[in-house]
């Protein structure tokens, strides 16, 4: 590779590059699997006593394996003359000597919005095992929160870790900022795309201490792997090492440059492995800010420093045992561009130093002529580029009244920035050449006042002393008042003594607005946000619970509680459910509920309330953690989790006891863990996260079909986006996880839930057909705000619902712009943005009679994207707002509007408040008629009888009576129940369906008539079936009329069907 492996003709790509320490016995080398084609060769760099001897290229078998014998043979053939006479291995392993303590050491790691690479780099530096090491991370993109998050979350315990932000773009500015802050006598520079060898620092320091005139040491830079032919060409052209022989360069009298200094390679970012004496570098004038990455020149700052050092009488050493590894960048290497840029760098340095001789350019044999010509063109243009860059730098310095690039911040104050009040980082911020207050990234706040550098090692205790819980207790109290208002509204509705709707809205807004305002605030600790979100989630869950505090009343709830009863009764899963046959095939919710009911001694209702409540908390906190992980901002996470409450189904539908309520929470936790996995990809953490993902995904798969499909779709989208988005590390693509999720889904569908398609296909086909009919004008559009039962919504609710959609659509573009400008390299954020856009596209479906419900159900998933996008928009606007308080109120108001709109769109006006379920009597309370009828059936007729009934009664017979009740038209019991007289086919059908009992309900109301105390509203017409309909079984005479409670009559029809 580069100068070590000769011509490299035997090198077949992809190739891995590894150090082989000959101090220890040789072992087999197993190369890890890699995305794409497997490794074909291994470049083994032999090292003995820490000194690299040379490199050998060895073929790799199909499994990525190189045996010890192959390794020895390869090394012998390539390095025969340099190996010790007693062969390989022949030496006892020696522990590296500890570095002498003559000088203190600082490492400056420059980075620009690359936390993944930075983490890898920092971990390798920490492995250098130098207790007194000072590590300075310089972020050249101030306010880029993920870097701060990375440092406080993963490296908080590392002593000597410091964080610097430099606002002026450019590698030289960043290195100068690090140099300004560094306290060490010796400062080593490296970049975030570097992984250092454990002996790097020790050997660099040792080299600089070897002679007093050595002021700078450059080390060996090796690639971690050579992936493609383009990589190989790049390495041949610009391999960043200067050979394997230790050298010391000094300037001879009258010479421009040391004759052997390889200039081209100096101008190719060898500064990533450069160590200098700090005082010399400062006195000499720092790095030239007109050169280096981020300037017009783009290269040459390292070569410039070497030349200045040499001309100042110092020596520059090359130490090949000081090894660092350069990770391949995601961008494909372009040899031609690289050659051109190097040429510019060399030309600029030549112009600056007025070098008489043209710098010696080292190009390997076989370099294409075009590349050579580009390099020469760059050399010619270099002076002009330097001139432009210098004018720009000087102009800026003159504007600011300060010399460019010269500062000394060793005694300047720092700020302590707190992340959520739990973790802190010491920040030095340079803005326009002087120390400034660091910008506060979203979710961070500063500790005031910051006095002196390293002022307080543990700042969090003092910062939280005044109010350790923040405003959470007071907001909890306000939320409780909101809940109480809703309860009073429900009480008014149940008793019919007043209109509880205003109290309902007042209660909901009392919960939403203060918490939204607080979450929008910057100066809120992370723990407080977590508490507030938990309170928020539970308070809105209470709104649903207070509506139905006695029993489950929603249609789906009754189906699922019947499944729980079946599990508890039979001791097994998958007991058929005649009302909704698909539900027993997804027994996740019922399994957890039955286990809790059985173990904790709770009723299925109480256990279900607990499980769904826990799911609601998981959903809220999982959402928060998910967005926080993606954006690095606790504030964005908090606002996004709050905004999700504006999903039309949030309060009532996903708060009900139904399988998607739990599955949605599990899916959100899954994507949160996936985000953590992607962040930790390649590290030791990733395998653990991937196990969690697979386990929770499996639980989701057996809990709900549509949530599983949505989750798989999201995983697929993220995988594809990771592969295709530019600037994304393709290794982080979750293909294996996606494959596992798809496999689990397919396995479940093929083995257990084969009937899922029978359930979903008609719904989806119906939605498509209805959309087509509406578009073609064959069907009328749906009238909004007019429920199938009950009065239409008040006019003001129309305005709120439409207004919420309008403001949502107005804000979305801002969020999408933020996604584009800041997160377009984040596959998950891009996928979420796409989901948000898709949500907007589904809104017209609400005008289609046969498709609106499908669109409504899809909103549960698509609104995740909407919440993230609008949260990004809000936080971005707040960050630049000159009136933050007003901005926070604007966010709170926005949240209030869209959550109100979601409630209006998701639940009819009449169904939000409590119905008359249980009413008081003189001597106790009375339950609804159909409920007690179902209970009577369960107590007196035994369990598992086959019933024909109206849909709502059938659900009650299933859940309360534990019967196998059949409703609807498959088989067509509905027509039998609604017919005025018996037809000959009816007994046959009842016999074929093995119906033993019939429950006849005289009330003709579509929505759960049996669940509530009956009081036909005057506005409803024909509330009861005619006597001819309900009396036909009596007229027939063969049915036994067993039970009569007024509206509900139960017949035993065995005689009728067997005659």
């Amino acid at each position, binding site marked *: 590779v580069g100068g070590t492996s000769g011509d490299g003709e035997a090198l077949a790509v992809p190739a891995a590059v590894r150090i082989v320490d000959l101090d220890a016995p040789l072992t087999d080398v197993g190369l890890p699997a890699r995305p794409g084609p497997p490794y074909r060769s291994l470049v083994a760099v032999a090292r003995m006593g820490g000194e690299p001897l040379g490199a050998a290229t060895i073929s790799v078998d199909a499994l990525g394996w190189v045996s010890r014998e192959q390794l020895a043979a390869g090394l012998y053939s390539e390095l025969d003359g340099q190996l010790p006479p007693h062969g390989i291995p022949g030496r006892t392993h020696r522990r590296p000597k500890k570095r002498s303590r003559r000088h203190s050491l600082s490492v400056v790691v420059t980075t620009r919005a690359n936390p993944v690479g930075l983490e890898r780099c920092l971990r390798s530096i920490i492995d250098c095992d130098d207790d007194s090491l000072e590590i300075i991370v310089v972020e050249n993109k101030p306010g880029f929160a993920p870097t701060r998050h990375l440092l406080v*979350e993963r490296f908080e315990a590392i002593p000597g870790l410091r964080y610097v932000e430099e606002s002026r773009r450019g590698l030289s500015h960043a290195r100068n900022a690090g140099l300004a802050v560094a306290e060490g006598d010796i400062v080593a520079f490296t970049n975030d795309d570097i992984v250092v060898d454990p002996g790097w620092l020790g050997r660099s320091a040792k080299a600089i201490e070897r002679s007093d005139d050595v002021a700078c040491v450059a080390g060996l830079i090796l690639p971690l792997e050579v992936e493609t032919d383009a990589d190989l060409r790049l390495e041949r052209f610009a391999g960043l090492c200067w050979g394997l022989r230790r050298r010391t360069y000094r300037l001879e009298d009258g010479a421009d440059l040391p004759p052997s200094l390889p200039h081209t390679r100096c101008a190719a970012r060898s500064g990533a492995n450069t160590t200098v004496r700090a005082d010399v570098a400062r006195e000499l004038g720092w790095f030239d800010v007109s050169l280096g990455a981020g300037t017009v020149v783009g290269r040459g700052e390292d070569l410039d420093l070497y030349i200045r050092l040499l001309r100042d009488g110092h020596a520059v050493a090359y130490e090949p045992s000081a090894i660092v590894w350069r990770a391949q960048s995601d961008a494909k290497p372009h040899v031609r561009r690289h050659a051109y840029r190097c040429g510019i760098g060399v030309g600029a340095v030549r112009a600056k130093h007025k070098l008489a001789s043209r710098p010696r350019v080292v190009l390997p044999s076989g370099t294409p002529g075009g590349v050579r010509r580009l390099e020469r063109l760059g050399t010619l243009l270099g002076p002009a580029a330097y001139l432009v860059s210098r004018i720009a730098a000087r102009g800026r310095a003159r504007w600011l009244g300060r010399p460019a690039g010269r500062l000394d911040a060793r005694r300047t104050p720092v700020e302590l920035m707190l992340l959520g009040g739990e973790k802190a980082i010491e920040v030095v911020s340079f803005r326009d050449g002087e120390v400034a207050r660091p910008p506060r990234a979203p979710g961070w706040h500063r500790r005031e006042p910051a006095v002196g550098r390293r002022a307080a090692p543990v700042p*969090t*205790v003092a910062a939280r002393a005044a109010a*350790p819980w923040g405003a959470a*207790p*007071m907001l*909890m*109290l306000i*939320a*409780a008042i909101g*809940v109480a208002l809703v*309860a009073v509204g429900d*009480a008014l509705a*149940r*008793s*019919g*003594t007043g209109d509880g709707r205003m109290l309902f809205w007042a209660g909901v807004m009392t919960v939403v607005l203060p918490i939204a305002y607080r979450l929008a605030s910057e100066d809120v600790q992370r723990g407080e946000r977590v508490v507030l979100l938990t309170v928020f989630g539970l308070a809105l869950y209470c709104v649903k*619970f*207070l509506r139905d505090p*006695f029993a489950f009343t929603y249609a789906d709830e009754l189906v699922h509680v019947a499944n729980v009863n079946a599990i508890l009764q039979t*001791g097994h899963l998958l007991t058929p459910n005649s009302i909704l046959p698909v539900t027993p095939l997804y027994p996740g919710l019922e399994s*957890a509920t*039955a*286990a809790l009911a059985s*173990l*904790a*001694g*709770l009723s299925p209702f109480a256990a279900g309330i607990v499980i769904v409540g*826990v799911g609601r908390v*998981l959903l809220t906190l999982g959402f928060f953690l998910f967005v926080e992980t993606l954006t690095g901002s606790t504030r964005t996470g908090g606002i996004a989790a709050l905004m999700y409450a504006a999903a039309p189904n949030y309060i009532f539908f996903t708060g009900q006891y139904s399988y998607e309520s*739990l599955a949605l929470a*599990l899916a959100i*936790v899954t994507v949160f863990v996936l985000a953590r996995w992607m962040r930790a990809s390649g590290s030791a*953490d990733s395998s*653990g996260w991937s*196990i*969690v993902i697979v*386990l929770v995904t*499996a*639980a989701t798969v*057996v809990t709900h079909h549509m949530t599983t499909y949505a989750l798989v779709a999201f995983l697929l989208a993220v995988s594809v986006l990771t592969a295709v988005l530019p600037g994304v590390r393709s290794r982080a693509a979750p293909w294996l996880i996606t494959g596992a999720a798809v496999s689990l889904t397919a396995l479940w569908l093929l083995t257990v839930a084969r009937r899922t398609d029978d359930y979903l296909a008609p719904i989806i086909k119906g939605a498509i057909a209805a959309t087509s009919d509406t578009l073609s004008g064959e069907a009328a559009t749906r009238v909004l705000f007019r429920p199938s039962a009950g009065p239409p919504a008040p006019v003001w609710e129309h305005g709120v619902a439409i207004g919420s959609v309008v403001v949502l659509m107005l804000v979305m573009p801002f969020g999408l712009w933020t996604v584009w400008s800041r997160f377009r390299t984040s596959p998950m954020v891009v996928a979420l943005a796409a989901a948000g856009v898709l949500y907007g596209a589904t809104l017209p479906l609400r005008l289609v009679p046969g498709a609106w419900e499908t669109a409504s159900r899809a909103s549960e998933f698509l609104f995740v994207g909407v919440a993230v996008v609008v949260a990004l928009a809000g936080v971005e606007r707040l960050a630049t707002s000159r009136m933050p308080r007003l901005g926070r109120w604007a966010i709170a108001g926005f949240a209030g509007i869209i959550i109100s709109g979601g409630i209006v769109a998701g639940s009819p006006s009449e169904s939000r408040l409590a119905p*008359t379920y*249980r*009413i*008081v*009597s*003189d001597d106790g*309370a*009375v339950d609804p*008629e159909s409920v*007690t*009828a179902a209970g*009577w059936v369960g107590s007196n007729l035994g369990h598992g009888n086959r019933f024909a009934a109206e849909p709502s009664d059938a659900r009650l017979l299933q859940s309360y009576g534990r019967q196998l009740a059949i409703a609807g038209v498959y088989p067509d019991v509905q027509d039998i129940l609604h017919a005025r007289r018996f037809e000959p086919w009816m007994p046959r059908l009842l016999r074929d369906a093995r119906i033993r009992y019939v429950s006849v309900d005289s009330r003709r109301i579509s929505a759960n008539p049996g669940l509530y105390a009956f*009081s036909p509203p005057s506005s409803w017409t024909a509330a009861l079936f005619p006597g001819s309909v309900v009396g036909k079984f*009596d007229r027939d005479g063969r049915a*036994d*009329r*067993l*039970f009569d*409670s007024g509206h509900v009559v139960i017949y035993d029809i065995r005689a009728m069907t067997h005659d």
Partner: protein
Amino acid sequence: MTDRRNDLLAVALWAATAAALLQFDSLPEGLRLVAGLSLVLALPGYALSYVVLGTRVLGPVERTVVTVALALTVSILGTLLLDLLSLNLSSRTWSLLLAGTTVVACAIARRAQTDVPRERSTRRAPRPRDVAAVGVAVAITWSAVVLARTPLRPPNGVTGYTQLWALPVAGGVEFGVASHELGPVRYRLEVGADEHATRRWVRLRLSPREQWTWLVPGVSFSPSNVVTARLYRADRPHSPYRYVRLRVSPRGPASTAHRSRRTP
């Protein structure tokens, strides 16, 4: 500094104890609730989180979310496994599954970890007014729940109802009346054959949620073996309020013995 391995040991002991306690049917409700909640919602997930994620930097919020999600996952997938193995799903099998998972996971996690210190908590005691605010909030929420669960007087127009039934039982017929009216009601129940003939009748007065049953053994009222019962309210004595009709098998001579039972 405390060793986090001790936490795992404590969790394993807690799970084992909870499982053992749950085998007793007479376990007090409070203990059963705590044991059940911890086994289903926490302990297996906590132990598993240390098996799969080790002691890596994981904040308390993240740990809590992962713990609960994994605990639910264990409940869901474990129940599925028990069913696949054709084991009966009961409190015994569930408690053994969840406690067993917890204990095994704790053992694995403890083996994988050595000397993992737990950070000393820097949390400070909350201010009295914060505690008071939280306490008042809990009280208000509790009051809201109590209000919601308190039956109220129904809106105008809502009335109660009464159930009447007739069930064939061994050697006779059981008639039953259950009142779900809003106040005490007086009834008259007439039992007869076919559609008209009245053989027996009885007067009743039932309070709300009170039930009365009447077992009439060896009934044979008519050649057609059809038994009818009509329930009249005292305030509407000429209009049947409820009506049932049942065909019975002939059982020889009718007995005059009958037995009635009143339950609250």
